[in-house]
């Protein structure tokens, strides 16, 4: 990879085919893949999605169709078809190879799942075989495209070269402001559509196929340089993008017919909000907090106690929502300061262990405050059930309402409330991060000794981060108490198989990208959806996440969405003083990020 010989006379492909044939395979294969989705793949409708109809795709076939279509688009862009040049600005092979692989993955997964679920390949109709072969063609084509380094390096290196993002991607032509906004709007609508489809997948197979398509095509767009261009657009229109994202979030329940999916949505939002709060503590201030879910618990219990539930110790007390939200946040803040003040004198691993301990203390204390082993406050393991629904000026959140022809169910109502809270948390996060206090958090994270030598009172700013993170989690907790009808101690543990728990929260932050706004929310969505959709994973989900996290740390340590700091790529190439780490990592494009 460090080889800089520029013009090798004849670069060739990994598969020895003439270039014209390779391109033809890509285009033809893409079309054939898309077309094969219209055939019958199996004879029985026992396989979910009904793949038995000739002439109309169903279920997973739609995903194969989409993958084939997108591969075709990329292939057409390679041919230089007018209007598609933006898809392949660097005219590199990686997007083509990844798109083809995405199609191959979805199709073969479907075919194998059919054979596996129904008991043998005999259940495949000819259409299934055709699809399997058709989806292989673009892959062959992609790896037959001439690629620099093939023939010189080992096969493994060459394969890597096919899916690596090139260093230099030509700068895009500047767009007019309204065009930039139009692109962002389109991307938001597309994102909402893709996200909604993912939430609405009805069975595990469809969700896995969906993941194949989404992961490979996002990766393809990344290697094509389109993601970089888009993040530049976002950087130009930050507030517009935020507004669009907010609108898209509000639009979500209106696209749903089943309140069950709104329930998934509201849980993702609660999980994401808490993850964003944790991101202040972990991502900005660099304090590893392993007991963070306790603050969510404090908020939830506080809200439950003042909710007017007859099982609450203060059953006569019923605060309006704004008051209970503030009380919950304040209680969490006090709890955060109480925990933070003694523990924040510790650094690194010691802090992590102590916060882990305090998190467990909360759960065990709540478990024991039942009147037998302690004061009667929380009803012990029974928790506080029958929390009444919220009521805003006669608008009962517990009932379905018709708004403009759309029916908004109970969870949709709470979803919209949670969007509002999420917006507040995003605002708090972005404003705090971009200020004197945010800079001092980052400075503390980077080098605490140097930061104190610059006049930063380390303990004080760390305590502020801790308290702010805690109160945001408490705020989310107040809503979650009403959404789930009851609060019990069990969810507020360090690790469990369903979110939210401290390990999942931390995983959401790290997986999504520390120090970003979108990262933890995306991470939370992924971590919530995966166990929700993949039922067969449920008892092995912790193992699966362990493996996923290890792989992620190996290949993309900055998380799915990289922080601006980790992403900034400057024109330091050829500068001798920049430490030469290039040879150590596999992907040149992520070198500067990986050093974080």
């Amino acid at each position, binding site marked *: 990879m460090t080889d800089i010989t520029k013009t090798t006379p004849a670069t060739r492909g990994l598969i020895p085919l003439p270039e014209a044939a390779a391109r033809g395979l890509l285009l033809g294969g893409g079309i054939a893949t898309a077309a094969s989705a219209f055939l019958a793949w199996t004879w029985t409708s026992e396989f979910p999605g009904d793949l038995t109809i000739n002439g109309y795709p169903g279920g997973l076939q739609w995903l194969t169709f989409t993958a084939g279509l997108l591969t075709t688009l990329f292939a057409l862009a390679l041919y230089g078809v007018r209007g598609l040049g933006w898809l392949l600005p660097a005219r590199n092979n990686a997007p083509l190879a990844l798109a083809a692989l995405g199609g191959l993955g979805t199709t073969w997964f479907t075919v194998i799942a059919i054979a596996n679920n129904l008991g043998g390949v005999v259940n495949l109709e000819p259409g299934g075989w055709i699809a399997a072969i058709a989806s292989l063609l673009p892959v062959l084509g992609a790896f037959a495209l001439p690629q620099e380094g093939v023939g010189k390096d080992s096969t493994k290196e060459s394969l890597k070269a096919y899916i690596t993002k090139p260093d230099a991607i030509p700068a895009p032509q500047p767009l007019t402001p309204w065009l930039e906004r139009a692109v962002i709007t389109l991307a938001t609508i597309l994102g909402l559509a893709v996200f909604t489809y993912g939430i609405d997948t009805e069975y595990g197979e469809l969700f896995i196929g969906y993941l194949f398509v989404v992961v490979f095509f996002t990766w393809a767009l990344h290697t094509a340089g389109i993601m970089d261009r888009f993040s530049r657009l976002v950087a130009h229109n930050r507030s517009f993008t935020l507004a669009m994202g907010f609108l898209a979030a509000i639009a979500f329940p209106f696209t749903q017919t089943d309140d069950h999916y709104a329930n998934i949505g509201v849980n993702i939002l609660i999980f994401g909000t808490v993850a964003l709060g944790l991101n202040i503590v972990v991502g900005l201030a660099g304090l590893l907090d392993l007991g963070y879910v306790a603050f969510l618990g404090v908020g939830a219990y506080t809200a439950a106690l003042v909710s007017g539930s007859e099982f609450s110790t203060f059953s006569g007390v019923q605060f309006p929502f704004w008051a209970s939200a503030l009380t919950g946040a304040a209680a969490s803040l006090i709890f955060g300061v109480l925990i933070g003040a003694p523990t924040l004198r510790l650094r690194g691993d010691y802090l992590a262990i102590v916060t882990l301990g305090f998190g467990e203390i909360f759960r065990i204390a709540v478990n024991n405050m039942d009147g037998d082993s302690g004061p009667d406050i929380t009803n012990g393991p029974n928790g506080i059930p029958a929390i009444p629904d919220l009521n805003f000026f006669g608008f009962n959140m517990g009932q379905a309402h018709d708004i403009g022809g759309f029916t908004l169910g109970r969870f949709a109502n709470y979803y919209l409330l949670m969007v509002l809270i999420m917006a507040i948390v995003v605002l708090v996060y972005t404003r705090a991060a971009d200020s004197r206090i945010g800079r001092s958090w980052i400075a503390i994270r980077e080098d605490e000794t140097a930061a104190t*030598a610059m006049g930063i009172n380390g303990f004080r700013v760390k305590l502020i981060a801790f308290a702010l993170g805690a109160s945001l989690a408490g705020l989310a907790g107040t809503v979650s108490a009403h959404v789930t009808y009851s609060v019990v101690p069990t969810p507020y543990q360090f690790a469990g198989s369903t979110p939210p728990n401290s390990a999942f929260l931390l995983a959401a932050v790290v997986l999504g990208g520390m120090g970003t706004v979108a990262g933890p929310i995306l991470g939370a969505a992924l971590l919530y959806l995966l166990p929700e959709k993949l039922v067969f994973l449920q008892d092995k989900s912790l193992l699966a996440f362990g493996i996923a996290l290890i792989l992620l740390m190996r290949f993309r340590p900055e998380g799915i969405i990289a922080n601006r700091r980790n992403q900034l790529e400057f024109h330091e190439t050829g500068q001798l003083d920049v430490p030469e780490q290039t040879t150590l990592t596999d992907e040149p494009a992520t070198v500067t990020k990986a050093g974080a």
Partner: protein
Amino acid sequence: MTIMTTPVLEARDVTMRFGGLTAVRSVDFTVNAGEIVGLIGPNGAGKTTFFNCLTGLYIPTEGTVSYKGTVLPPKPHLVTQAGIARTFQNIRLFANMTVLENVLVGRHTRTKEGLWSALLRGPGFKKAEKASEERAMELLEFIGLAAKRDHLARNLPYGEQRKLEIARALASDPGLLLLDEPTAGMNPQETRATEELVFAIRDMGVAVLVIEHDMRFIFNLCDRVAVLVQGEKLVEGTSEVVQADERVIAAYLGEPFEGDPGAAEAAEVAAAEAGAEAQSTTSTKGEAQ
């Protein structure tokens, strides 16, 4: 020589012990306004320990450090707030922050916008942020890094990282700047440039205390030089005085000075025994000087 009367920094009888080891032994030390003072000494002489005592990183076992007449509390952030800024021997920039952000962090003690004003974003917040940025850009222009304001600190070449560290320290508007080996690892041209930079800082009205190994740099730069050997201040004076002092030469060369009993004989025996090997060592020592 100008007449300097107002002391900026006064260390009185500073002693630092780590268990049984006395790293710094009752050092008296003064830096006056408008002065550039050098602190030299062989490796392990206790220079950095003394530095850390001055900046509050260590609490001196005995003695006091005062800045402009008031005794400094032994807390680094309070020392910085009082008006003493420092750089580090091994560069300690905030590597993943941009050049501008690094300098803005240096402004921390001179601004006071807290969390609430950051969240509410009133006019006061915007004004303060703008003023901080202007001051930071002034400093970046002063050290010549204004064009690289948005680069990450870790992507700067070594010499520029040193400069940026100085700018970050200057951002706290100090009355005294402590430089811990500012030219370590620099080539002669860069060292020259640093010299100019230190003079310019002095001309801004900031007193400077420099620890350095590069003798040419120190003797060109400093109005006064103090020599620390084995935790004790051996000699203090102008460059000429220090350069001429035999004990300083001896301390640096590791040779026995007059009155050290038996050392001369021991050296003779060693020389006789080791022969050529000993000769080569002395010659390298000579070069080192």
